[in-house]
């Protein structure tokens, strides 16, 4: 029997009310590790890739990993896996907080949600007991209120995941909130729960999850903590300034997309960065379960129109998307817009990038005045806030379209090229024209444009664990593949990706996974599992109808040189990296895994 896992998955059919407990498949635990890998295996086996993501036939897996529930640092992560409504690809969205370890203590590794409830419901799991509860009075309420009421109805110490108004209204950029302040933000996973009339889960448990070898686990965990302590990133700068510390790092290189990526540098970007957040709005840092890093920000707006509001964030990605991507320098408005995204249950990245797209469409005259409730120009903080509100409420013609994400909005107005997205998911805060490898990663990520599926920024900007020249094309195919496979391992372990800033190599993760599970996989086998997970996700997408033609970037990033700043004149020549990437992956020229590669990984088309 493998350890680290509780050993039981919970399957809830909302259409029939049937609840099943299923044993963990030990073979899968070895081949797919857990978390993202194991959960994706369930989706790939059980969901027709061509299904409408918002139909009852789609399923959602909420999965922890084998390292979770132990003392392993930053191991409280949860992956929400489904077929995504924004991209039509397999989608998984990762979140921290305290829900993951609590779910394991309550008796389950994963929860598989299928079907559709007749009326809104939520799930209450307490020490192995399960109850499907009426959620009608909470349906469409803000996320913090929902969390509070669910705790009142269940247990004040319960940990809660839930959707907000955006998920209820089936926004394709709706998230799933954990502890009312952390988000499984990307890929519209919240809308899939909304389509099932499923509000969320409350969990409370007192069981202990035993590792396979407690002594070895203790040694491996001590080593991991040592590495995180030795790194100035994880021990000093992330705790002190949060993730938004990267604003200046990226902007000073001229790779910070501004005004819907019409530019990539802003002289005053620093006013929205981590140093300024620490100075102006920070109350204290915040850590997820067993995390020694504490990159979260508890903040309060202390001046101006939004004075007195408090909450969590903004993060690097949201201070960018809701900030300079929309031409906004007003940190108070950005912070309030971030709070609103959390309350509506909207992905802050996609929300900001979609608003930026709408602003460009409006300024260029592509959105008629009759469709807009107010002028939607770049640069105004109050306009940004109002746009988040109409997006969250799907109010009016434009509000309804904003909730669909940037691609559908831009397509509706005849200019899909102005959507800064890949496979219809919005890009993150790194301009591939200035940082080439991240462009290849955006183009090939299995859930559309995404930075954290293969965070080449670690090498290309952070110089960690080894520096790589951001402007060179050579070597980027290999780096991207490596980071994608490596990340798939970390995402499947239950640990946070940010641990890579101290634990730079697979050799730093292997000892923990072996000690916790008792599975004697080598480090090479773990990397092979990462590659297997990546290819399995790719197969799902190919069966869903996507092709190699979808592995591209918005035309702006391929063709329009950056007009000014330190990376002036740069474009992203994807064709200098993509063929080599396919070759390294063992895929044919159209991006399909070859028979040989599938046989090597034990996968079938």
């Amino acid at each position, binding site marked *: 029997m493998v350890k680290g896992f509780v050993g039981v998955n919970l399957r809830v059919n909302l259409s029939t009310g049937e609840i099943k407990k299923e044993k963990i498949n030990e073979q899968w635990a070895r081949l797919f590790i857990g978390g993202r890998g194991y959960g994706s295996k369930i989706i790939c086996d059980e969901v027709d890739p061509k299904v409408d993501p918002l139909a009852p036939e789609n399923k959602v897996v909420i999965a922890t990993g084998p390292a979770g529930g132990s003392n392993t640092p930053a191991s409280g992560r949860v992956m929400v896996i489904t077929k995504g409504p924004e991209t039509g690809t397999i989608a998984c969205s990762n979140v921290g907080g305290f829900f993951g370890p609590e779910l394991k203590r309550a008796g389950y590794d994963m929860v598989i949600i299928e079907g559709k409830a007749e009326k809104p419901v939520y799930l209450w799991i307490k020490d192995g007991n399960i109850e499907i509860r009426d959620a009608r009075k909470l349906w469409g309420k803000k996320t913090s209120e929902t969390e509070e009421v669910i705790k009142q109805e269940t247990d004040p110490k319960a940990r809660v995941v839930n959707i907000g108004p955006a998920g209820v209204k089936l926004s394709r950029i709706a998230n799933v909130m954990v502890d009312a302040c952390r988000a499984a933000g990307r890929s519209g996973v919240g809308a899939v729960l909304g389509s099932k009339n499923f509000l969320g889960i409350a969990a409370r448990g007192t069981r202990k999850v035993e590792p396979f070898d407690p002594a070895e686990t203790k040694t491996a965990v001590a080593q991991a903590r040592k590495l995180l302590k030795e790194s100035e990133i994880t021990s000093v700068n992330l705790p002190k300034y949060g993730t938004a510390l990267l604003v200046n*790092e990226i902007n000073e290189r001229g790779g910070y997309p501004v005004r819907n990526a019409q530019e990539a540098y802003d002289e005053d970007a620093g006013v929205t960065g981590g140093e300024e957040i620490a100075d102006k709005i920070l109350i204290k840092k915040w850590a997820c379960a067993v995390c020694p890093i504490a990159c979260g920000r508890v903040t309060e707006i202390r001046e101006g129109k939004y004075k007195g509001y408090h909450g969590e964030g903004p993060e690097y990605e949201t201070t960018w998307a809701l900030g300079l991507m929309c031409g906004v320098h007003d940190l108070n408005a950005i912070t309030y817009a971030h709070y609103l995204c959390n309350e509506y249950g909207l992905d802050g990245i996609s929300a900001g990038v979609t608003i930026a797209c709408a602003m460009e469409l409006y300024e260029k005259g592509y959105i008629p005045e009759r469709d807009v409730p107010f002028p939607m120009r770049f640069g105004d903080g109050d306009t940004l806030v109002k746009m988040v509100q109409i997006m969250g409420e799907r109010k009016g013609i434009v509000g309804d379209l904003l909730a669909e994400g940037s691609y559908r909005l831009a397509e509706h107005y005849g200019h899909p090229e102005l959507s800064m997205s890949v496979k219809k998911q919005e890009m993150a805060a790194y301009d591939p024209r200035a940082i080439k490898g991240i462009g290849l990663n955006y183009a090939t990520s299995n859930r559309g444009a995404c930075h954290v599926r293969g965070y080449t920024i670690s090498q290309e900007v952070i110089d960690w664990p080894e520096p790589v020249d951001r402007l060179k094309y050579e070597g980027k195919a290999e780096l991207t593949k490596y980071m994608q496979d490596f990340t798939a391992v970390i995402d499947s372990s239950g640990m946070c990706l940010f641990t890579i800033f101290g634990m730079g190599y697979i050799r730093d993760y292997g000892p923990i996974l072996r000690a916790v599970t008792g599975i004697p996989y080598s480090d090479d086998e773990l990397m092979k599992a990462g590659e297997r997970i990546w290819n399995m996700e790719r197969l799902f997408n190919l069966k869903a109808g996507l092709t190699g033609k979808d592995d591209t970037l918005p035309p702006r990033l391929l063709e329009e040189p950056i007009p000014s700043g330190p990376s002036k004149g740069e474009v992203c020549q994807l064709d200098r990296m993509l063929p080599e990437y396919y070759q390294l992956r063992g895929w044919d020229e159209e991006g399909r895994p070859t028979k040989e590669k599938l046989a090597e990984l034990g996968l079938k088309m």
Partner: protein
Amino acid sequence: MKVKVKFFAIFRDLFGAEKEVELKSGSTLQDLLNLLCDSRQCRQKLFDRSGKLRPYIKILKNGRNILFLEGVQIELEGKQIQFLGGIHAELADGDVVAIFPQVGGG
């Protein structure tokens, strides 16, 4: 010549956020850093005991990581002379130098 220097994160506590520095023509990044480290505390932040720049301190010259600044090769008296990049790169009037500790995030 004048060079603008920007500091970020914990370096701001020590060096301030931004400085404009007057340098002799032909000065290198090394000269600039020597000038900036006007106290033992400052020097210890940037350099180790042997005088080498501490690993993972990132210095950008006009947005380019100095690790990847290419040296210039010129012919002098019939010989090819290689000028070093990196910390030995020469500065020019109007250059912007950004100095970061080891930061990450995203």
